[in-house]
């Protein structure tokens, strides 16, 4: 029995969470450091996983399988394919930055009871989310996945509702209600999605008699498990609904702007860069593999929704007055691209989508965290409250610009590669869809540059005149992310090599092959 690497990757942050929560009220700083170290440890483990993972090896590697609830036919079954391992790495990578960026976000403002320990709670919750996200990336048992898919809502919910932009509200009751509204909205949307998925999960068990992904996929492949078309479609819809809420896909998106707007920047990053990825990931892993036929059946509708998300999200981003909400709508647009790539059912599309998940995670983290630093300085989320920051805090402005450029997927930065792959992947099968999606890149330029212009350029406003430039801690957060953006933009091979085989597998699951060019190149 080899060392259970995957379990360790998930368990370490979980234990870390408990430990952090247990740190006595007085030792806030200790709690912070503990959390940071744990997250770094997790990163190390994830790195080991990445190294141990052999792209050309078996489909699911580092697998672990133990009986858990035989009565429900549930096994504790872990295993990663290229897609999973990439996303685990992404999660483990981002959390330290999130923690570092949120270093002071949870220092207690008001004097609650002496047992009230917001700081410990904040970091413990972040680690808890990390643990749950990681395990749901690793789970190859539908039920196991579902459990953590649902459970991660709770810590997330406390993170959103419990901690807001502090500078922005000193005992401000309105802001507090706003925040709890956002938190509740987040929870209810995802809970409804999850519960509907629960019905589908139960249905799946009734039909398939097992929760093991591989078993079901094999059984379907060799025909030993037959699903009636209508059943398969209903189950697919049940699953897809939950994932579409999480992703989020238009018109189920409205919780995201509230959540990201009200939460602190690091938490917002946690939502959009980490937690939401579970949704798109699950589409790729569960929807396509469990219900290939239904997936193909639903593709047209989903593509349309994805297109709407892309354009609609971008347009609304243009119309926002609030920096964070703007980023949120931008993310909606980007998730549109991801889903587009997944359901274009081409190699480029799916590899692109996976790559997109990673890149979007990094780029949004960069942009959102810098935005958070900006907001924490001025104490306002309104774009109109800024102007001329570039002159006062050039480094902040510069990093913000790079973040923006990444968001509009400028060639040379990571997101370009993934976005172009998604577009090509879509175009090869659905040219019109591809072209419409391409409009997204113009709109992206519009909202990011408008944001940059309104906040950073122009005459220096009095309120920002004294604004300090990025501090060392903040630079430590941003610089590596930017470096990563550039590196992956120039040399995405490390990821694509890992992802491609997994995508090939998925493609064969749905029995699709890429369309061939009409003129064969003279090789």
């Amino acid at each position, binding site marked *: 029995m080899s060392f259970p690497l995957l379990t360790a990757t998930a368990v370490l942050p979980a234990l870390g969470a408990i430990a952090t929560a247990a740190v006595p009220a007085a030792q806030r700083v200790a709690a912070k450091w503990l959390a940071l170290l744990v997250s770094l440890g997790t990163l190390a483990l994830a790195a080991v996983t990445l190294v141990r993972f052999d792209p050309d090896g078996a489909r699911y590697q580092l697998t672990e399988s133990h009986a858990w609830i035989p009565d429900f036919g549930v096994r504790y079954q872990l295993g990663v394919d290229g897609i999973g391992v990439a996303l685990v790495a992404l999660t483990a990578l981002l959390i330290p930055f999130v923690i570092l960026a949120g270093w002071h976000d949870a220092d207690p403002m008001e004097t609650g*009871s002496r047992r009230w320990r917001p700081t410990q709670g904040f970091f413990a919750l972040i680690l808890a989310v990390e643990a749950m996200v990681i395990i749901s990336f690793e789970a190859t048992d539908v039920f196991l996945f579902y459990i953590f898919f649902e459970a991660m809502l709770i810590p997330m919910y406390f993170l959103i509702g419990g901690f807001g932009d502090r500078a922005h509200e000193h005992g401000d009751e309105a802001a507090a209600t706003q925040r709890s509204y956002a938190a509740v909205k987040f929870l209810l949307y995802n809970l409804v999605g999850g519960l509907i998925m629960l019905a589908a999960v139960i249905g799946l068990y*009734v039909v398939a008699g097992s929760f093991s992904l591989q078993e079901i996929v094999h059984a379907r492949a060799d025909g030993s498990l037959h699903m009636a078309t209508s059943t398969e479609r209903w189950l697919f819809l049940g699953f897809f609904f939950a994932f579409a809420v999480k992703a989020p896909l238009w018109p189920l998106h409205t919780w995201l702007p509230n959540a990201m707007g009200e939460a602190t920047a690091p938490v917002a990053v946690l939502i959009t860069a980490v937690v939401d990825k579970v949704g798109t990931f699950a589409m790729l892993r569960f929807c396509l593999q469990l219900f290939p036929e239904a997936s193909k059946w639903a593709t047209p509708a989903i593509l349309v929704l994805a297109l709407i998300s892309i354009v609609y999200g971008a347009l609304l981003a243009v119309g926002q007055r609030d920096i964070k909400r703007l980023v949120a709508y931008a993310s909606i647009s980007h998730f549109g691209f991801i889903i587009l790539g997944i359901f274009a059912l081409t190699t480029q599309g799916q590899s692109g989508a996976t790559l997109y998940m990673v890149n979007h995670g990094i780029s949004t983290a960069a942009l959102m965290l810098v935005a958070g630093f900006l907001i924490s300085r001025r104490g306002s989320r309104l774009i109109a409250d800024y102007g001329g920051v570039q002159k006062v805090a050039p480094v902040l402005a510069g990093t913000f610009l790079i973040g923006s450029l990444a968001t509009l997927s400028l060639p040379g930065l990571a997101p370009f590669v993934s976005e172009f792959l998604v577009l090509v992947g879509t175009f090869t099968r659905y040219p019109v869809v591809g072209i419409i999606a391409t409009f997204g890149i113009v709109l992206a330029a519009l909202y990011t540059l408008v944001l940059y212009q309104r906040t950073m350029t122009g005459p220096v406003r009095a309120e920002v005149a004294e604004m300090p430039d990025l501090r060392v801690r903040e630079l430590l957060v941003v610089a590596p992310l930017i470096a990563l953006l550039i590196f992956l933009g120039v040399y995405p091979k490390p990821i694509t090599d890992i992802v491609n085989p997994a995508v090939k597998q998925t493609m064969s699951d749905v029995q699709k092959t890429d369309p061939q060019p009409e003129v064969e190149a003279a090789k």
Partner: protein
Amino acid sequence: MSASAVHSLWTTAATAAEPISKIDAPKIEYAQLSPTLIVIGAAVVGVLVEAFVPRKSRYYTQVFVAVVALAAAFSAVVALAASGYGTTKAHIAAMGAIAVDGPALFLQGTILLAGILGVFTFAERRLDPEAHGNRVDAFAAQASSVPGSDSEKAAVKAGFTTTEVFPLLLFAISGMLVFPSANDLLTLFVALEVFSLPLYLLCAVARRKRLMSQEAAVKYFLLGAFASAFTLFGIALLYGYAGSMSYATIAHVVDGTVTNVDPALAGTMGNDVLLLMGMALVVMGLLFKVGAVPFHMWTPDVYQGAPTPVTGFMAAATKVAAFGALLRLLYVVLPGMRWDWRPVMWAVAIVTMLGGAIVAITQTDIKRLLAYSSIAHAGFILAGVIATSPDGVSSVLFYLGAYSFVTIGAFAVVTLVRDAGGEATHLSKWAGLGRRSPLVAAVFAVFLLAFAGIPLTSGFAGKFAVFRAAAEGGAGALVVVGVISSAIAAFFYIRVIVLMFFSEPKPEGPTVAVPSPLTMTAIAAGVVVTLVLGVAPQYFLNLANQAGVFVR
């Protein structure tokens, strides 16, 4: 014609002058009835204690007797189960009056554990400020005296306490132990009354808010009696239908396996109208006890008015006992009637799930809120009952086990949050509790999440088990409704969490009393069970599975 036949039957009976043969003494398997007997005995002892033990030491004696008895009874149950009475040796005891089988033992075990925790919460006397140097519990000093009257003041001054609650509790438990294992309608009815009557009384003896307490008692009593009258009439009709009280016989008649029907009695014997009406009325009586819509309306008022420890115990144990009886009735007596009662139960389950969840949304009192949530849960459990499969039984058993602990724990937490007027049950008072005492708030949050059925809590495991059974039983639509109503339900549980954690504490808000180890144990047990059953439910599922078969 038939009348004359009957007449002749009598006359022959009268004229026949052979000597009346000795009534042979009934054969009672005392060992296998020991759990019940122990509890009843202890209750009687408790009464004697009231009579003879000096007032000062009554409290301790009573608590001691109760705990010991319940523990003994529980170990007896375990012993029986261990020696296979739950599975292989399952059989009908006491001349066919009582069944000793898996479901019976499982539920008895659950009830007894709930009872022990109940005793703990009953015995809690650190929460209320001391009156005249005497520690006081949740019960009136002298239930008979008018609240606020001189006699009561005197009683308080004298340090009286209503220690009768313990024997009452024991009587109730004994009734509950019999209820799910009753194997004929008479036993069913008697057990029903035996556990109902003490509960009526217990509802009436709150120390604070006595008027509400008494009102609760009156409502509970009148409605309960009303319901049991219906039950009794139903029993009568079933008797009329089958000519017997015993489940087995009725079942046979239902299945038409009884051949020797006196043609003279064809008018009644095997008359389906009697059967159907009787079934409906008996089932209605049980639905009243489980608090299913539309027989639920007593629940909120009683839950709110009764002393919180009583509410907790009642909410947990009554549901367990009543569902046990309902299961046995439907699975043992009326399986042949499945196609008649299933549609009706479908409807009941649906309105119960939705009704409970929807009305709960606008509640402002935590106890009423929990009451409505208990209604919604009754609906979920009904979904499992309808499955009519071994899986259905075991899932219901599991759900009941999980649910009872969560409930007792939750109400125990409610007893801790107090202000000048006793327990602060109005939700607005709970605002910002998470800031004041994060631990208590967190614990309560765990219970709420369990109620909401969030994964990694027992609530989820139970819900999944029940829904899965229902789905496999072909009640997919029911699962969908259940899912929807759980979504609705989630909303108000979350509302409470929001209130506790995200809203600013009110300056004149309630304080959280530090309880004695008794209540702490109850709460801790609740949390532990909730989490264990959430994370590693397999062991208990196995228990439930083994216990999933009724003896006929």
